């Protein structure tokens, strides 16, 4: 297990509580939210590969994840953890990326089974993606060609400890180095690969826009994708003006 930690997971330095001891209240609030985040994790009910068969035993009466505050949730909007269990075929990887982008941050990805580390048993196959970390930031690996429920739960407890200590904010990395991830994705899916989520817009909106967010791959994306701008509620009042004034929507 020890060298598993040595895999270069993108460990962002813990968010230093702002302002030092000055505003004690901010510290207490951050402390409380970090504690609650670690004690209440919603696991996405999306079984991407064969390893998912180990999750129901982890939830039911023998191992009971609920005492750790972990509940299975059905849609990505409600979930915090995305468990990528088992081999990641190219078709499934598209859905995994779509699901990952639909999840609300702070979100965590756990690569269960060796297939997410280096391709595992299917390393020779033309149809599987080998290294999950190329396509999205991964917070935790649980090795094993289907790890038993004890291993899954100890992995989850390790993740809870990281969250508690604030070391697991890797979701920012997806926004800050989006170009790197997009490049890997385009290398696998081709140039006109796009998801309905406007990741660059979200990076700007949530202040995660770093120098490496944009690059040549996002430029490639820009050419292909007409970004889906949300329909703003507007009062297009007045007479029979032609539809020219809402050209802005199409950009």
């Amino acid at each position, binding site marked *: 297990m020890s060298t598993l930690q040595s895999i270069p997971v993108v460990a962002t330095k813990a968010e230093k509580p702002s302002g030092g001891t000055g505003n004690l209240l901010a510290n207490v609030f951050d402390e409380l939210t970090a504690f609650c985040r670690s004690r209440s994790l919603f696991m996405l009910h*999306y079984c991407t590969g064969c390893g998912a068969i180990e999750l129901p035993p982890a939830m039911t009466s023998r191992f009971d994840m609920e005492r750790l505050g972990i509940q299975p949730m059905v*849609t*990505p*909007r409600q979930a915090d953890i995305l468990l990528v269990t088992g081999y990641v075929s190219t078709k499934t990887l*598209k*859905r995994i990326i*779509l*699901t990952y982008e*639909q999840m609300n941050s702070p979100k965590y990805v756990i690569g269960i089974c060796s297939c997410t580390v280096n391709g595992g048993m299917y390393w020779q196959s033309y149809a599987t993606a080998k290294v999950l970390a190329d396509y999205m930031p991964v917070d935790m690996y649980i090795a094993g060609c289907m790890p038993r429920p004890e291993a899954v739960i100890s992995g989850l407890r390790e993740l809870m400890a990281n969250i508690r200590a604030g070391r697991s904010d890797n979701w920012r990395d997806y926004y800050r180095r989006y170009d790197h991830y997009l490049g890997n994705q385009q290398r696998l899916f081709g140039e006109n690969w796009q*998801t*309905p*989520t*406007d990741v660059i*817009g*979200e990076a700007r*909106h*949530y202040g995660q826009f770093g120098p490496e967010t944009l690059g040549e791959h996002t430029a490639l994306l820009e050419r292909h994708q007409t970004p*889906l*701008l*949300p*329909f*703003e*509620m*507007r*009062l*297009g*009042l*007045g*007479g029979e*003006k032609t*539809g020219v004034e*809402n050209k802005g*929507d199409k950009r």
Partner: protein
Amino acid sequence: MNALDLLLSLSALMLLAAFLFGQTRVYPWLAGILFTGQLVLLAGSDLPMAAGVGLEIFGQQVGWQLDGFGRYFALITIGAALASNVYMGGEWGERYQADGHSLRWLHAALAGNVLAMLLLLSSKDLIAFFIGWELTSWAGFLLMAQGGERALRAALRYVPYAMGGAMAVLGGLVLTLSWTGTLDLLELSRVMSTLGNGQLALLLALFAIGFSIKMGLLPFHLWQAPAYAEAAGPGTAFLGAISARMGLFALGILLVKLMTLSRVADLAFIDGLFTARDLLAWVAALTIVLPTFTALKQNDARYLLAWHGIGQGGYMLLGIVMGDATGSAGGLLHVFNYATYQAALVLAVFAVMHRTGTADLNSLGGLVTRMPLTFLVMLLGIIGLAGLPPMNGFVSKWLVYRSLMVEGRPLLFLMTVIGTLGTILSVYKLIHNTFLGQLRAEHEHIREAPWSMTVPMLALVILAFVTGVAPGLALSWVAEAQAALGLPVLAYTLGGIESPRGSLDMLWIVGVLFAGFGIGALLFYGAGGRSKRVHQLDNYAGGHFLSADVRYHYSDHFYAGLMHRIGPLYRGSFTWLESAVASATDLAASLMQAWYRQAVPALTLLVAAVLGLGWMVWR
């Protein structure tokens, strides 16, 4: 030239003006001013407003006089006419004219309707009443028939109903004259209750059938939904708001003023168990439930609202038939409340039709981002129609429930609640299929309805909201109508009613509600983190990639589960009844024709004449 003469001449003048230059741009402004003038005149003058002119037919005095009850309805009539007039004057009117219809006839029909209704409402005796009644029927037909071929067909279906009703009312009038010797409403209110049970039963049957046809009570309601739905835009709003309530006005006078509810209760079918009053209450209760659940199945927004028009009529009649202070106040207040949000809802549906060209609920969706004001109007309208606080619909329904609870009528109470819940389901279907869900690609560039449409709608809905928050404003007119009719008057406060057995204070309830919304907003926007708007295709679809050409919206067969359970109950028995009656009359007519057309027509005439003479001489 006292106040009522001025009022009637003003509306007659407006009818003439509409007929002469209705299609010009200036007429709507003139009509608007005249309508507001009439409103001020009506509200300002003290009661009863007697009319100068009067005539004398068959030795009977025919005159017009407006009392509190009539004025209450007149105010609503002119208010609804004002709203639809403003709507007609704007861009909708231009589009209507551009489509080849004549705006002049539409304005004339509206003005004619107002005139006829004022005549009916201010009738002092049964002859004036009958004149007003017939004028209203024909003006209503004129307004329904405008707006295209389907509207004409639906209006023609109304004609046999109207004529049948008119014959019944005429029969009742003649019988009243022969039995009581007078036609004046005031004297009748003293004399009529002294008639024998059999006579009263016949009179009640005749008059009630005639009036319930106009009001669309259960067996005679089939004509109303297509007729009101297919009429031209503002015409539907006016018809839906007040035209059907003329039947309620007539029933109110008949049941309460002339026959007095106690005498109606004496006419027992099974003595002591099921009286005529119970029959009327149950007809009203069934009118609440059945049309509401028919509305649930409609897939056209106009038909859905028209069917609700019939359903809500049941609340009003039930309130009046209950007869106690809260019940009748609830019924009468519901007339005003219903007029406000029904007109607003219909105008909103026609605003959507103006922009998207269709009212079919399966080809709309997601318009909230493109027509927010119309959405706001429809939202407040459906809250009123469903009868939820803070809108005024809740107050009148609460009063009707309150009287049913105090009078101890569990089954009637149950029917009204089933009606209300059915309304909530169908109004959500209306607003969901039109404004919520996925915006269609072809509707991405439509714009909000023009000011000439949104202003009247918003005014009506704000009026509904204000009288919901402070029902006392409307209850003052209702109390005046109750006094004029002879019903026990409701002790009301600005917020509702005060009584130890269960009071209602809308000021506090709406205040607490908005305080709760404030705390909820504080919790949501304050405590929660930043949120970002996402496009409608950035949606959970089980890992599937959505695209604009995929129709990812649930609107058809909206309440599938419910329909599985109550689907078989829709057997269309009333349509069967109507067609049965129609074919029966056809058969009778053809028999008469055959009998008359046989070889020697002159002989049969001679025999008939001799028999008639003999009967006359012998009697």
